[in-house]
């Protein structure tokens, strides 16, 4: 690329990053600013709103509830989806399209529409328990597409069939195959699926609000009516928490260099390619 073209490109990139950086960072900064305001315009900065998080009634419970929901949803999702995906790949490959279709279905059914159909079921469930944790039953459905994709990527990267056949020829049962062979071979995909689930559950509002449960987001909205500073402080905290989770995730997602080496022919041919390959940087997005 010649120099003037490169300079033009750099100017374009810097402009885009500065303008959009401002658009995305200023609101977050403004939340910080807002959450540290005193009672009047000229009052000194104070962390009062932040310290009130602990004492605001209902808020603590909602935070704990949302964290519990996140954990339960992740575990439930893993227990339900991962063995099924492994089983389908190994024993029922012909229904894999159906499973995929079902798992991706929530992408085309908006949560606000799904809740209309789910609500009667939850009203029935509330005959047995009034715990908020039952929400995780619905959240598993909401996280299904994301966790399916993450786990599918992980499973595609390992030679599941050979690994499980090797394990079974050594005398392992299905449980052992899952625990000792599948899970240890795709830690990043599993972590990926869990982190996505956690992020989604912590931000969930639709189900909880319309089925009258008080999770974190509902509580923030509720507290916001009386004490804007505190609810914004919680909002900032939850945002930073989610960002940290997904930042971890992006580092877990590092490209696997070992996979290409499995095929010596391709490796040989792609040697000169590897140089130009770096230019268009396909990191392995499937």
């Amino acid at each position: 690329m010649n120099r003037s073209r490169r300079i033009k490109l750099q100017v374009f990139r810097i402009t885009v990053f500065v303008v959009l950086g401002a658009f995305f960072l200023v609101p977050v900064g403004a939340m910080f600013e807002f959450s540290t305001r005193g009672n009047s315009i000229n009052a000194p900065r104070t962390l009062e709103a932040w310290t009130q998080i602990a004492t605001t009634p209902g808020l603590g419970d909602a935070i704990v509830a949302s964290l519990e929901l996140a954990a339960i949803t992740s575990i439930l999702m893993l227990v339900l989806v991962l063995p099924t995906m492994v089983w389908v790949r190994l024993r029922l490959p012909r229904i894999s399209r159906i499973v995929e279709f079902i798992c991706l279905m929530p992408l085309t059914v908006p949560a606000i529409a799904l809740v209309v159909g789910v609500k009667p079921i939850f009203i029935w469930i509330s005959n047995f328990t009034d715990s908020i944790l039952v929400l995780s039953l619905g959240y598993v459905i909401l996280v299904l597409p994301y966790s399916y994709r993450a786990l599918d990527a992980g499973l595609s990267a390992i030679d599941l069939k050979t690994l499980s056949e090797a394990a079974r020829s050594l005398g392992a049962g299905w449980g052992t195959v899952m625990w000792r062979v599948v899970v240890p071979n795709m830690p990043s995909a599993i972590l990926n699926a869990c982190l996505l689930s956690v992020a989604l559950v912590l931000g969930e509002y639709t189900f909880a609000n319309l089925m009258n449960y008080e999770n974190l987001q509902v509580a923030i909205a509720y507290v916001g009516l009386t004490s804007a500073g505190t609810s914004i402080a919680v909002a900032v905290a939850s945002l930073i928490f989610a960002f940290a989770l997904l930042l971890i995730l992006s580092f877990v997602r590092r490209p696997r260099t070992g996979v290409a080496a499995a095929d010596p022919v391709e490796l040989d041919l792609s040697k000169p390619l590897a140089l130009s390959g770096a230019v268009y940087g396909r990191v392995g997005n499937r």
Partner: protein
Amino acid sequence: MTTDGRATPRAGVEVRLENLTRKYATTTALDRLTLTLAPGELVALLGPSGCGKTTALRLLAGLEQADSGHVVIAGKDVTNVPANRRNIGMVFQAYSLFPHMSARQNVEFGMQLQHVGAAERRERAREVLDLVGLGPHMDKFAHQLSGGQQQRVALARALAIKPKVLLLDEPLSALDAKVRARLRDEIRRVQLEVGITTLFVTHDQEEALAIADRVGVMQSGHLEQLGPPTEIYSRPATPFVAEFVGLTNRIKGDVRGGAVTVRGTRIPLVDPDVTDGPATALVRPEAVSLASNGEMEDGPLVGTVIAVAFLGAMSRVTVDLGDTIVLAQMATSAASDTPAGTKVRLALRPDPVLIQREEPAATAP
């Protein structure tokens, strides 16, 4: 070949690279490279990756700019002319076809940019696609063509704009061996037919030797040797060329009076003006012959065959001499007398050889 308007061999133009230097952040990719391509000549630049051959080609194409030096095409200095005004045809390693266009649309695209009329465009596209043997497939898209066919289309596309120079950047390296050999000959045929001055970059010595009028062997940004294929192979100018092109045995010897004595055999030197002392002689496998009949007394050239590699008409025999291993190449019929395990005596043909000193410093008196 002058049956119609197109096939009139275009008189190729002279191309000169003068003192081209290109530095990257940490490395010098090209160090004062000077190279002249005669009109209509095909020069292959050969070398390991990172030797600067691709940089040379990209500077000639105008895709990169030199830090210093000049590019002269047909007597005109084009050093500062951007790539899109140099009128150069280029074939890339792979994946360069526009995927949303059929083969014919790809070929017509360059002519479209030159404002060639639709009728002529269509006709010329058909001609060049016929020339590369792809006439029947001209309405297919890249993903419907094999790798070899894609590269033929790329060649047709490059030629369709009637370029002054044709540049081929490892055009065969992404193909499998069989297709590679066939397409290589095809490229040469087309190049001769069109008569265009061509620079061909490759890391494959067989390819370079087979296709080029002259081969330039490059290392670390400069030309090690430039000459016809036979000369490059049989009279390598430097140890690097000797080792990079073809197989070479490295056998320790002793230089005395303009010849080197290797395991009791005296072999003349390519360059007799060297000081005496120990050195490594570079001996081609085909200069090594072997005999298995008669008494095998232990001697410096007696050893055991440890492997015989069948290469078709020729075979390569690996012989263990105890302290070193030597490759010998011969007709397969000769090699069949000496299966692995046979005790053999080697003979070294007294062709002039190159030598290499262990330590460059050791050559200084």
